[in-house]
């Protein structure tokens, strides 16, 4: 019995739909009212059985809800596929990108005026520079062995400077090339 109650409690703390760190207001109120009474009942039971209950640890979630930004992405599907040389695959893939962008839009809630961007956590350190001397190499043969098409000491590539075919042709090409 105790097992199932606790399981229900932990499920109630998670909003039903994908949370992604964003709590839409309806979901949050479900969480609070859905588990509120249950939560304090369970806590009381624990308190009486464990006299060393520590008060430094917050007993309830401390996050503030953030409303989702309804920003539809511009029609960049083709442009992104060309830049990345990776295909979306399906409508699901495009939906995933939309969700990823909406998730990322939460960044704009925080004020970062005057804050320097961080490139590396090692920015305060002097990095070691070694002497400008050749210490290793001569491994052309080993490296060439890793490639599928080589001729003498060259990697062989198909002809360049030919733009990718249009989207419809690309889809056909990719379907054809299925593993």
């Amino acid at each position: 019995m105790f097992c199932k109650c606790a399981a229900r409690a932990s499920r109630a703390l998670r909003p039903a739909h994908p949370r992604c760190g964003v709590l839409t207001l309806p979901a949050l109120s479900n969480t609070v009212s859905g588990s509120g009474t249950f939560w304090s009942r369970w806590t009381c039971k624990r308190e009486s059985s464990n006299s060393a209950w520590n008060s430094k640890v917050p007993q309830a979630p401390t996050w503030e809800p953030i409303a989702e930004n309804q920003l539809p992405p511009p029609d960049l599907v083709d442009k992104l596929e060309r830049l990345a040389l990776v295909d979306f695959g399906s409508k699901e893939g495009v939906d995933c990108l939309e969700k990823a962008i909406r998730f990322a839009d939460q960044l704009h809630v925080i004020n970062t005026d005057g804050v320097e961007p961080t490139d590396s956590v090692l920015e305060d350190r002097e990095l070691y520079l070694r002497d400008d001397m050749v210490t290793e190499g001569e491994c052309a043969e080993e490296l060439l062995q890793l490639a599928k098409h080589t001729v003498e000491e060259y990697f062989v590539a198909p002809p360049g400077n030919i733009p990718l075919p249009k989207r419809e042709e690309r889809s056909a090409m990719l379907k054809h090339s299925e593993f």
Partner: protein
Amino acid sequence: MSASSAAFRPAAAMLGLSIREVSQALRDGRVSATELCRKCIDQIQRTHYLNAFITITGETAMEQAQSADNRIRTGKPLGPLDGIPFSVKDNFCTENIETTCASNMLKGYVPPFSATVVQKLLDQGAVLVGKTNLDEFAMGAGSTDGVFGPVRNPWSYTTLYREQSTEDLDSDWAIAGGSSGGSAAAVASLSSFLALGSDTGGSTRNPGSLCGVVALKPTYGLLSRHGLIPLVNSMDVPGIMTRSVHDAATVLRILQGPDERDSTTVQAPSTPPSLPEHFDIRDICVGIPKEYHAPGLSTDTLAQWSRVAAMFEQAGARVQEVSLPHTQHSIVCYHVLCCCEVASNMARFDGLEYGHRSTVDSSTDAMYTTTRHEGFNNVVRRRILSGNYFLLKSNYERYFVKAQQMRRLIAEDFKNVFRSGIDVLLTPTTLSDAARYSDFIQEDNRTRSAQEDVFTQPVNMAGLPAVTVPTALSRRGLPISLQLIGQTLQDWKLLTVAHWMEQQVNFPLIHLHGDSNERKLDRSVRERTPTIGS
């Protein structure tokens, strides 16, 4: 487990020893390195259903073990790791051993060199038994999205778990966590004494937590990334998984230090030969960041967090609530920076120089596109596309630079707290114990990563050291662990505190259902096991 009790253990129980204990057993001649290697490989085969390994290096392992025996027999072991079986996540290059990153893109790829951290272990005489399974290209929090299939949590196969499980075990098993799930499962199921993972947003600590092993993410720059196939260059760190904090410290000491081949490595601070024997916890101030009670934190995990905080306080340490105000937004910042660096790092996979190459040859772009379509799974492709979106000229300032600014704020949060006199922070590692696989896959990889990485990725953003230590079993019989976060380059102090904590909580050894010694020991272990319900 004292050295004297180790002497009387049956042979089968050798696998459950710590590195310190088994290393002593090797030197005393109670077991040979070849016997130990054989036992580990047998254990891997016995637990094959966990799917923790992609490649088992049986032959080379036995050769390495033989060399170790020769050295140990003549009284000249190379160090504490000589003859010790270990495994490595399959995104570390290993010379002449296939390295796949659990991806079609690198199936059949055999590197001509070994990663620095792997070579350092081999140079110490450690015995490599295999390459472990992961999420494809280390992207994920469940080890469910690799081409070789998901990794299963060994704790799903204990009598304890099976007793409270109402369904057929084949549909009820729990995930191992990710992305270094295979490494965690290998150490947890006793088929290795140590495993290497990688940690970009929690990929070593998350599976370490769910599989009940000690998992250390060292300070960024302390361990060389040369040979670790990169995900996010500014956050990636090789991770160390063992069954005790003392073992993790032993390994850290061997692996840390600058590497000419990785320009982001730093000088390691001078480190004593082992963790201090006598340590006064009253000297330590533990911070409890209130923002780490995030929505979705399970009641069992909250109870453990409270229990251990109380433990510190009762022993005389100062324990105080602190605030890391930007915690809630850290996951979004991580998501953007991760996608951007991934888009850049994955650009090298074009089929020309290594890895998979498609048969299309009408043009370079057509060949690249089909190669990447065939080689990468959905998860990888979607992260690349998101990254490219954030890096578009029109988006660069608003997303990438903005995220970099946020990163500074997150790192500053930690700096401020440590400046105020806090020595270490105590937080949960994951929201709950391991989810059932059937539940976990109800949401997509990005959603799950965003949920599961909540407590682990801020540490990568700030480059700090962190370690997860298992503290108890949940009411489902699965491990619950807590995370300690330390100051930059104070990994040794962090481990000292973690060692103290480990000794107080007395986490049980695993007993897989059907182990020959399980029936005898099982009852006594279960009576002693500190679970939540008791």
